[in-house]
């Protein structure tokens, strides 16, 4: 094959010597290689990051894969807060300035934004202006498409998730809300459970990087995906239908009593699940900015007050448990009891009454309670109250929960001891008090109340929920049963003080409370009262524990104002959950002797 070329003499004659040619060749190759080497050093040694970034930016797209924020659901899966896809409409004023008035008119009509504000923004001397934020994706896309068809340029869409509170005011005090998202589109929790469980609900954004050509992903191009981890759903123990009803009843009660505010709690007696937790006045989580900031909380957890006579339930059940009293034990109750610093009165004027322990509770006698509680050894009442859960937070998961005040050490004087026995000189939050009395409903076993079904992690790492609720025995089953029978007498039409709290056909145990109230403005008793009613039913097989608190009621005390509200709520709860009457005979404990 090579034979013929060897015989050709022509070109061989004109070439230089092979060694020279080889040298020249080597030099050329060396020069080229050294150029390559220099370039290599420049690319890899001097600033590799920048070049890599430039290479990646060329035709590649980085997309944040947004993690969907978890929903907040009620116990039946009804969404109370959920995220939907939303967009922000932004404008580049460099492009929009020419047709600003027409475009502003169009946007004002389509998106309901303010004409003058938008006009100003469309003419601003920047390259980026917000036109509307958190617009539902469908609407935003439609509007921008329409604008393009009409020949407007300079409008763009960006991701801006919308948090929706479909039930508006229902449980708004618990759920809280998200503020305007941060610039990067991440959520900005401002109140309630949204804030407390922010990390749990948020999840982690993912990222995708791929190469594009003409707007489409190049099929075999470089492609890396870090998938987004969606936030977890937060399932509450709240029954939203009942929550709505509770809020309406509470509103009606507060307005009817010309009162300042109110709280209503419904708890499942057996599990400690909080089924409703209503505050009034409240706000609308969909439009929080329209309402004063002072309402962005759950008063049932953040505000403390003196419980008044409802606390006698705890004192008397502790007495029975300690073996220091029996329901039929007889007491002579004087018209006034002079103690160290000041006389103690009852809410009604009487002479020397002959009341049983049941009668002391049924008629809510302060003097009788103090006399009965005198039998406690020093420190015993405090030990019981602590065991009932007073003086420490319930830990249901809401931030800024107040733990109330249970005096300790030197602050627990004899006078304080007397007053605490009938529910003054100590303060509680409403859920704490509900859980405490629920102990009696639940055969003497205290259950931590829960707001979260299953379990969820707070931002500080604490696990809360029904799975983590603990139980502890506070009083004996027998003491709880006897206290229940005494409480039943409170609703007796003849012997009790709260016949209006009765539910026809059911045995209900309850206790009224009308406490002197400390107001924030002066930090003193201003003569206003906190009317409350707490109870459970049916007495012999408790299903629900309900607590209604009305602050600054102008039309009456616990039995007259909170009692009827309690009856409505109890009747509704029993009906809704199909609880039949137990059909047993109501308590006939004597109240007098």
């Amino acid at each position: 094959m090579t034979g013929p070329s060897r015989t050709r003499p022509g070109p061989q004659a004109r070439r230089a010597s092979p060694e020279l040619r080889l040298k020249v060749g080597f030099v050329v190759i060396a020069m080229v290689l050294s150029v390559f080497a220099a370039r290599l050093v420049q690319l890899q040694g001097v600033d590799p990051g920048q070049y890599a970034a430039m290479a990646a930016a060329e035709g590649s797209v980085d997309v944040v894969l947004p993690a969907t924020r978890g929903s907040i659901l009620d116990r039946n899966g009804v969404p109370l807060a959920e995220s939907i896809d939303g967009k922000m409409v932004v404008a580049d004023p460099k492009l929009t300035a020419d047709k600003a008035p027409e475009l502003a008119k169009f946007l004002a009509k389509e998106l309901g934004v303010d004409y003058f504000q938008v006009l100003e923004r469309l003419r601003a001397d920047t390259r980026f202006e917000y036109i509307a934020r958190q617009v539902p994706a469908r609407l935003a896309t439609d509007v921008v498409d329409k604008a393009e068809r009409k020949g407007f340029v300079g409008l763009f869409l960006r991701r801006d998730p919308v948090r929706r509170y479909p039930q508006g005011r229902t449980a708004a005090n618990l759920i809280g809300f998200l503020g305007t998202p941060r610039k990067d589109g991440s959520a900005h929790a401002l109140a309630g459970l949204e804030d407390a469980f922010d990390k749990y609900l948020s999840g982690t954004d993912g990222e995708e990087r791929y190469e594009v050509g003409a707007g489409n992903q190049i099929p075999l191009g470089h492609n890396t995906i870090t998938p987004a981890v969606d936030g977890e759903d937060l399932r509450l123990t709240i029954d939203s239908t009942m929550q709505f009803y509770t809020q309406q009843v509470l509103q009606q009660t507060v307005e009817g009593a010309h009162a300042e505010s109110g709280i209503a709690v419904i708890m499942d007696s057996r599990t400690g699940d909080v089924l409703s937790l209503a505050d009034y006045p409240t706000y609308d989580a969909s439009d929080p900015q329209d309402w004063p900031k002072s309402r962005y909380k759950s008063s049932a957890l953040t505000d403390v007050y003196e419980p008044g006579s409802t606390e006698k339930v705890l004192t008397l059940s502790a007495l029975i448990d300690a073996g220091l009293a029996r329901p039929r034990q007889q007491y002579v109750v004087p018209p006034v009891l002079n103690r160290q610093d000041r006389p103690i009165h009852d809410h009604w004027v009487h002479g020397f009454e002959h009341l049983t322990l049941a009668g002391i509770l049924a008629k809510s006698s302060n003097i009788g309670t103090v006399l009965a509680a005198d039998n406690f050894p020093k420190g015993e009442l405090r030990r019981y109250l602590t065991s009932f859960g007073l003086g420490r937070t319930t830990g249901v998961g809401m931030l800024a929960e107040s733990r109330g005040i249970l005096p300790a050490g030197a602050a627990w004087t004899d006078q304080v001891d007397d007053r605490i026995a009938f529910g003054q000189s100590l303060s509680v939050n409403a859920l704490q008090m509900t859980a405490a009395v629920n102990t009696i409903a639940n055969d003497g076993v205290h259950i931590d109340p829960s707001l979260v079904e299953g379990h969820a992690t707070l931002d500080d790492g604490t696990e809360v929920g029904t799975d983590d609720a603990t139980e502890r025995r506070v009083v004996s089953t027998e003491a709880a049963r006897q206290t229940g029978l005494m409480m039943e007498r409170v609703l007796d039409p003849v012997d009790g003080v709260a016949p209006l709290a009765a539910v026809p056909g059911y045995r209900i145990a309850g206790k009224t409370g009308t406490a002197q109230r400390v107001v924030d403005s002066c930090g003193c008793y201003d003569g206003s009262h906190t009317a409350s009613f707490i109870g459970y039913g049916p007495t012999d097989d408790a299903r629900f524990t309900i607590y209604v608190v009305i602050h600054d009621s102008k039309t009456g005390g616990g039995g007259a104002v909170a009692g009827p509200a309690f009856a409505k709520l109890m009747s509704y709860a029993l009906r809704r959950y199909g609880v039949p009457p137990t059909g047993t005979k109501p308590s006939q404990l004597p109240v007098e002797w």
Partner: protein
Amino acid sequence: MSSTAPQLRSRLPRLAEVAVQRARLTVVPRPRTRPRAPRVPFVIFVSVILLAGVLGLLMFNTSMQQASFRETALEHQAADLTAREEALNLDLQQRRTFENIADRAQKLGMVLPGAPGVLTLGTGKVLGTPVPAVPGNTINTNTPGPHKPAALNPPPVIVHEKPQKRGGDTGGRSDAGHRDRHQDRQHGAPDRDRQR
């Protein structure tokens, strides 16, 4: 090869001659009889494979691109449909709020039930004290609106009508008319806000 054979033979002893004779190499004749394989079909074969490969790759690439276009289009459609579904869901949720349902039910004349009686199937006994539902046993579905600052919620301007003088001048009338309009606007503003 043929040039080295005689030299070899002269150096070797006679005894080995036979063996050498036997071992002499001869040129194998070129097999002229077998026809040379035709090149054309091979070239065509290779070209066809090459062409098929190139075309196949091209078509594969094209179809991939096509699929990519289609994917993008479908993604747009999916996003659009998701947005539409969400919009419809919003509407549904709006209709489904407790306030709405309670309000509409009460407008239809529905009331809250009284106490129920529970019929025990085993014994045929009725437990509880059934109480019939009474008209007017409703809940208040009007929740108070937000408290607006005074600037947004001005007090109504009350214009007292002046006793009309007989044959009064037209200037006074037009002034009153102007103030009436002003009053309307002021009344209108809070209503519009409430609707929102």
